[in-house]
């Protein structure tokens, strides 16, 4: 159901207000990013799914009920009682450069191995260009700030050697998922599943996989 932009802004502030009651600002911004990317266009019932995801992500499973109450309370508040909008620069809730240390050790290497393994199989099928184009066309859906999105685009096209840390864990997950979706469209879901499974197997042999499981990015 379409929601007008004013109502969407109000909900955004309400979610941020609710999250801030149990999290520090950086974590709340990341949670808000998740909500914007995956839940802002969904019906109100989807709040439960969002709650489950954010509790898992922030390690707040034990305080799920508390957070639920805080979110419901915030959603019913008047605009005047809500926390200020965290601002457009944080939209997408990818951690800013200053928050980059929040990316777990080994995550970037593991991601690059997974992505590389997936793309290698797609190169063999001569569809890697199509997949890259599809991913770049959908990057905006990850909610990354424009500058960061440009850096990610450079990495996808091979103009940059490494992804910026600032893309964040959710960003890495989102990017891998976009690649999987594009692979499904190019070679079908059966082949895409096989390629992804093979990429996981290869990645799990890396030393970094000992400290950061590739399955955390699936």
């Amino acid at each position: 159901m379409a929601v007008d932009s004013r109502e969407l802004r109000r909900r955004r502030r309400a979610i941020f207000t609710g999250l801030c009651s149990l999290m520090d600002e950086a974590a709340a911004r990341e949670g808000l990013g998740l909500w914007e990317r995956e839940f802002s266009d969904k019906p109100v019932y989807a709040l439960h799914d969002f709650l489950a995801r954010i509790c898992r992500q922030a390690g707040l499973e034990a305080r799920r009920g508390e957070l639920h109450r805080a979110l419901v309370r915030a959603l019913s508040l008047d605009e005047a009682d809500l926390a200020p909008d965290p601002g457009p620069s944080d939209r997408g809730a990818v951690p800013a450069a200053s928050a980059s240390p929040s990316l777990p050790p080994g995550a970037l290497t593991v991601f690059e191995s997974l992505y590389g393994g997936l793309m290698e199989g797609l190169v063999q099928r001569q569809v890697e260009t199509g997949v890259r184009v599809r991913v770049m066309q959908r990057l905006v859906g990850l909610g990354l700030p424009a500058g960061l999105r440009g850096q990610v685009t450079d990495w996808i096209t091979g103009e940059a050697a490494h992804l910026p840390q600032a893309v964040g864990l959710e960003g890495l997950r989102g990017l891998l998922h976009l690649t999987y979706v594009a692979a499904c469209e190019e070679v079908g879901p059966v082949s895409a599943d096989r390629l992804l499974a093979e990429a996981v197997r290869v990645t799990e042999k890396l030393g970094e996989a000992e400290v950061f499981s590739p399955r955390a990015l699936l």
Partner: protein
Amino acid sequence: MTLHRSRFTPLMLITALCLFPAVTQAAESGPPDWLPALDTVWLAVAAALVFFMQAGFALLESGMSRAKNAVNVVMKNYVDVCLGSLAFWLVGYGLMFGFNPTGWFGQSHFALIGAENGDYMALLFQTMFAATAVTIASGAMAERTRYQAYLLGAVLITAIIYPVYGSWAWGSAHGGEGWLASLGFIDFAGSTVVHSIGGWVALAGVIVLGPRLGRFGPNGERRPIHGHNLTQVALGGFILWVGWFGFNGGSTGGADVSIGLINLNTHLSAAAGAAGALILLAILRQPVLLTTTVNASIGGLVGITAGAATMDPHFAVVTGLVSGMIVVAGTRLLESLGLDDVVGAVSAHGLAGAWGTLAAGLFLAGDLFNPMQVAVQMIGILAGFLWAFPMALLMYFLIDRTVGLRASTLDEQRGLDFSEHYEIGYPEFQADVLHKGKG
């Protein structure tokens, strides 16, 4: 189907006294009831057989799905029976079999309590039919439907969509007559009432959902997504076949000598369904897949359901042969239209059910090819489609816009077993593509 009808012949009475002395004794000493004891026993057995079909559906549908969605498919089959049974008891049975003065829907016997034993037996037997109708959609919509949204649909189907049409064709057991029944519409055990209605609902669900991620290529080319366990599919097919002996045999409404013909026709038509698919695939020079063969025999079972009691065995064979061919052709037609029916339910239940209902009119014993009867059958088939398809389309559309029917692409990637249920069916070989999740 008339559940009030008692066909307790002397021969059956002797058999009953020999085989079921305790039952007949109970019947003598118990309160008077419109359904005799032996009829009750047969209906109870038949109801159990029809319930067993749920296991067949679960095995067949999960086997035709990928491993990462197997639990979700089984859960849908399991729980739609649970919620559907409650909805049918509360609302559906009354709408279908309650007092029906207008011919359009029943108006009594909701949340049945304080009734006669025969009523309870009828309710149980009919609940199994409702459960069959509702579960047909689950396979068609597999691998990309949100669990809660599917269940909401299942409740509405068993509470409203299925029983309203049922009241037209089979109503009523408690006074009044459905408008289709009054025209002389023949649908003995529900080729249209149960199976086509389920098939049209499935078609609506498939349309609203859209195909699975990557099922069709950019230029519309088909990409087969094979099931993860074909042995399971075959076992599901066998179980459905067994269950159908209760489905059709129980639709006599009691222990009856006609069950021999009915179940023979059922068996022959199922066998002919598979044979029909073999013949058509040979003509088309296509490989004979297990999934197609099993689906074609199910098509044969669906097809004979309308006329199992009213046609001779050679016509049951014809009905089954054509049903099997329809399943093959229908599946291809749907694919060419870009519709992703995971298990081929629309062809096996919707299309084969429509043909079977027509065949029941064409091959009516003692009145073959009567154009008036055929016209009535056509009206019944068309009415079933015009009722169930738009209603289901509207229902799934509204569910999609409110609760959300389609799972996200991330859920499709991870598999609905994990994303909807936090468990997986095959932890050993699924571990490598499993999201880390809670662990």
